[in-house]
């Protein structure tokens, strides 16, 4: 009797274990793991966390049924007939070496299908090199170094406008101001972090300035995460350029603005690359000190109200509850890349990387979260449909000032001096 009871228990155990194993295998089979590699700690952590939240919001959009949102994949649950996207988060701390090792870990140990990242161009470069060697997909949302899509990679795709595109737009805007508004902007100063992103932004700015005859009178690189930017701002002030192009992330951006206030100096206009300027949290902390600065953007709540109604639904339902703020121009691009990748997988009909890559290279993807409305990649991975506008911030609201098609605010220039602000 005892023996048969033991036998029954043993059989039940085996059945239970088999069922559990079976169910987990089944569950595992219905999940597509995607790595989200961002700076979750370090100087750019605020932006990194926003990017992760945007990717998670896009995953919710894909995984859940959202019948009221008019975006591809929104009305269905998951892709490939029920596969759910699972985001595996990883932190590169803004360090290229950590980004490389984390990318290796994500592909080799976590077995992710693709990685989305990395915000810092300097981290994106080595991490995407890992992907290229492993023949795995790397989706880059907002890293803007033009060099990233000039490597001829096959598995790398980038949404953001490059520093080259933004630099040309900046100088075109200055030319427009000079011609139409008699702005008298003849000299340019550059201030940029001494990283892959900052250096490339400065390179492109130099090329664009040369094209339009702007004279670069101050060229100031700085170490990100510095204790002070006194020397840097003093160097700008000493040369007193009419315009400044800035490439400084998060805390460095706010320190730069505060230091300019401290030394009581401003150029006629200051235009920023995809930097701390775009971050609502940084602007909130700066308050009115942040007013009248300009920057390139692909998203702002003001733009979204006019042109991106569906993106606002995603923002309200899935992003703002996580981040307690609206999308910013950087973060939304990371979400867009997951949305595009999911569409490519759905079109490929399988998780065969080569098939998905072929779709990514050849198809055009509708995406209402992008200002342009669609995404299409050129050889090398650059999104040729990318669109960026120049905005000016006032009272923490981003008004669009250029191109004229999107203009909704009259620009304030020269910038109102520190002493004449309320």
């Amino acid at each position, binding site marked *: 009797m005892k023996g048969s009871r033991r036998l029954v228990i043993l059989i039940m155990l085996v059945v239970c274990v088999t069922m559990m194993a079976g169910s987990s295998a089944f569950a595992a089979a219905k999940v597509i793991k995607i790595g989200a590699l961002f700076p979750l*700690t370090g100087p750019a952590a*605020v932006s990194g966390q926003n990017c992760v939240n945007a990717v998670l919001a896009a995953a919710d959009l894909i995984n859940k049924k959202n019948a009221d949102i008019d975006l591809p994949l929104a009305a269905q649950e998951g892709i490939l007939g029920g596969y759910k996207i699972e985001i595996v988060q990883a932190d590169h701390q803004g360090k290229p070496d950590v980004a490389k090792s984390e990318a290796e870990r994500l592909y080799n140990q976590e077995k992710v299908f693709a990685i989305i990242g990395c915000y810092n161009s300097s981290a994106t470069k080595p991490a995407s090199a890992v992907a290229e060697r492993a023949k795995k997909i790397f989706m880059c949302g907002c890293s803007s170094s033009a060099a990233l899509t000039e490597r001829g990679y096959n598995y790398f795709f980038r949404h953001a406008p490059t520093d080259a595109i933004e630099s040309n737009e900046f100088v075109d805007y200055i030319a427009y101001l000079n011609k139409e508004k008699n702005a008298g902007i003849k000299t340019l100063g550059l201030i940029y972090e001494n990283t892959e992103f900052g250096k490339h932004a400065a390179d492109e700015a130099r090329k664009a300035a040369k094209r339009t005859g702007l004279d670069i009178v101050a060229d100031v690189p700085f170490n990100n995460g510095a204790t002070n*930017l006194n*020397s840097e701002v003093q*160097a700008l002030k000493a040369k007193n350029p009419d315009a400044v192009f800035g490439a400084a992330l998060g805390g460095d951006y706010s*320190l730069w603005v505060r230091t300019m206030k401290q030394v009581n100096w401003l150029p006629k206009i200051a235009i920023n690359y995809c930097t701390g300027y775009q971050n609502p949290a940084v602007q909130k*902390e700066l*308050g009115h000190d942040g007013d009248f600065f300009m920057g390139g953007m692909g998203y702002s709540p003001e733009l979204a109200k006019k042109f991106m109604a569906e993106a606002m639904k995603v923002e309200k339902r899935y992003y703002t509850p996580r981040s307690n703020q609206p999308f910013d121009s950087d973060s939304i691009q990371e979400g867009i890349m997951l949305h595009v990748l999911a569409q490519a997988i759905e079109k490929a009909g399988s998780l065969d990387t080569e098939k998905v890559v072929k779709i990514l290279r050849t198809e055009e993807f509708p995406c209402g979260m992008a200002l342009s409305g669609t995404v299409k990649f050129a050889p090398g991975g650059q999104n040729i449909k990318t669109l960026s506008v120049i905005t000016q911030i006032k009272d923490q609201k981003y008004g669009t000032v250029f191109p004229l098609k999107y203009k909704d605010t009259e620009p304030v220039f020269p910038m109102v001096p520190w002493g004449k602000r309320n």
Partner: protein
Amino acid sequence: MSNFLQVLIDGILSGLLYALVAVGLSLIWGVMDVINFAHGEFLMVAMYICYWMGFILGIDPLFSWIASGIFLFLLGCVTYKVIIKNSLGKAAMAPLLATFGLSMFLKNFCMNRFTPNFRLLSGTIMEGKTFNVGGAIISVPQFVTAIFALVVIILVYWLVKKTRLGWAIQATAMDKEAAELMGIDTENIYLLIFGLGGACVGIAGGLMTSYLAVHPEVGSLFSLISFVVVALGGFGSIPGALFAALLIGLVESFAGFYIAAVVKYVAVFAIYLIVILVRPKGLFGW
């Protein structure tokens, strides 16, 4: 000329701030031979205290530095009692690794609790205020911090050099066993030193909140510069820390303006390397 004066003043103001941050570290290192790896995170904690006191209670950093100084004094004492005391006399690296662990804990605790967001305290009494000296613009918050730094450093120096307690501290630093034989309670001296070290960085952090952003990583570079200041000035030497900090502030400022902003830390660490190679015990070390 005004550029030169501006750069000179910027260098002095930065240097005095570095001196205030470093003086506590120098005391602990010099007296106890313990490297407090959590020094930068102590600074961060002080900044968060003053930030939240300003944000929630509306207390200006001009006053809340008292609270951060007291809190960091207590944190220093608790750190000694709970962590340092238990690691002293064990493996040589034990106190260093213990404080490294503490630094990781504090940084990640703040990261988790307050997120990595950069927080700037707006509307403070000194915000945006400047005055002019010979064409150079001086920021009031930085100037006030520098004055406080000078006063605190002089007080600490007076305490160590001119009081019986200070003589006891010096005796403990020179020969702990001999000091105990003379009736000095070295246990309490160690406790006091850790508390004092915490208080100095607490005051510095509190005042810095009026013009610098607070975030979990804010202590890292200050911590690195503090180590350089202490090693350059000489372990335990308060005048050494002051001189070295001023030197670093000036080198940083002049190199940053006259050579290139990007080389300012290169110049700082180059000076440090040269001094350490020529005089390993630091400029004022015994």
